[in-house]
């Protein structure tokens, strides 16, 4: 026997709900010919049908949740990648600092003025030290 799909289950829930509503309409329309006990008996049936419809909707929602597990896992993996990309930007900044320090160094060297080099070397060392410090798991 084939398994019930969520769509089948939702449809089934609608059938129960609509049957209960139709029963209620009939009961009210024919109330003059119904005794108190017949009225109460039908009322009970309607409640049972409506509760059964709710129970079927609950099951159908459970089926959709189960079916969506794979997509959910894939989307969560994308979320993880996005977070990792954002984290990489923070690390990337340090690489950029290093690149900037290198440019400063290159600028000092290409200026041909040897006295300008120490300041550039300090900047370069600072940038490199920052990277080493942040990538050190002990720090």
């Amino acid at each position, binding site marked *: 026997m084939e398994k019930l799909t*969520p*769509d089948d289950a*939702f449809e089934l829930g609608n059938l129960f709900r609509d049957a*209960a*509503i139709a029963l*209620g309409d009939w009961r*009210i329309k024919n*109330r*003059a010919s*119904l005794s*108190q006990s017949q*009225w109460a008996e039908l*009322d009970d049936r309607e409640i049972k049908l*409506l*509760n059964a*419809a*709710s*129970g079927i*909707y*609950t099951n*159908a*929602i*459970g089926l*959709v*949740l189960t*079916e*969506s597990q794979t*997509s*959910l896992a*894939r*989307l*969560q*993996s*994308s*979320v993880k*990648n*996005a*977070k990792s*990309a*954002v984290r990489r*930007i923070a690390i*990337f*900044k340090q690489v*950029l*600092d290093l*690149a*900037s320090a290198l*440019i*400063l160094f290159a*600028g*000092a060297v*290409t*200026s*041909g*003025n040897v*006295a*300008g080099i120490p*300041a*550039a070397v300090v*900047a370069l060392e600072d940038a490199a030290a920052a990277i080493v410090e942040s990538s050190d798991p002990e720090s």
Partner: protein
Amino acid sequence: MIITRHISAASSGSRLIFAALLLAASLSGCASFKEVRTFASLSANAATYDALTRDYIGALDRRKQYQPQKFHGDLETMKMRREAQRASLDLLQQTVTNYMQGLGSLASGDIRTFDRSLDNLSSSLSDATLLDRSEKEAVGALSTLLARTTTTLYRQHEMKQLIRDGNQPLQDVIAATRKIVKRGIVADLQTESALAGRYYDNFMLAPDNPVEPVAMALAKEARVEALARVDNRIRGAQRYDTVLDEIAAGHQYLYDHRDRIGQDDFGRQFKPAVDELRAAYRSLLDVSR
């Protein structure tokens, strides 16, 4: 010798400035992610509609007032089954929110951090007293442009990749949530509406009921109010469904045009999708307040 050195320094300074100008020109083609950022931020806020799960589970307690005591045990059992689904239902919504926050972070980037770092560079450039003015300007301009260009391009690349990989699972998750909302929760609320209606109908129309005009008037009023409360919940769920539809459509647009993200006219073309999402979200807020 001194003249030669000056010429060489001036020439290297010019080259740096020229390189900076080239970078500036390439940067001018990039990249405003404003509309992507706005879309992601709106989606992140709108995707989580707490009232949905709360109402779905709370429905069973609300229904007790419309049913005799003998049915309350069944309602409690069903409530426990729904409680067991709570985490999964919340996770569906939360995952869409998390995804959009990730997209928003990439679209916004923390440029200020880079600018602070570049301020430090400016200050070290000032300290480098032996570089002449044009060289300092060239080095500063290059560093600024290098930082901004590379981060912009990096963000653009990561965003495209995220949108490419995330689109299908996002569409699937949203489709599953919409199915739960439309076919499950709205249909279940319609059941609640039928239960509330028949409760007051019974009160007013049951055979052998004594005719009490004041009690009838009060019952009529209570019936209208009870049905209006359920209708409001149904409207909230339907508007949330519209919000999800707009999020899915907006993201599909991003996916279909991902290679154009960051281009000058992209933001203008994407804006209608953002506006539609904003209108749908406002409409949801109107009903959920």
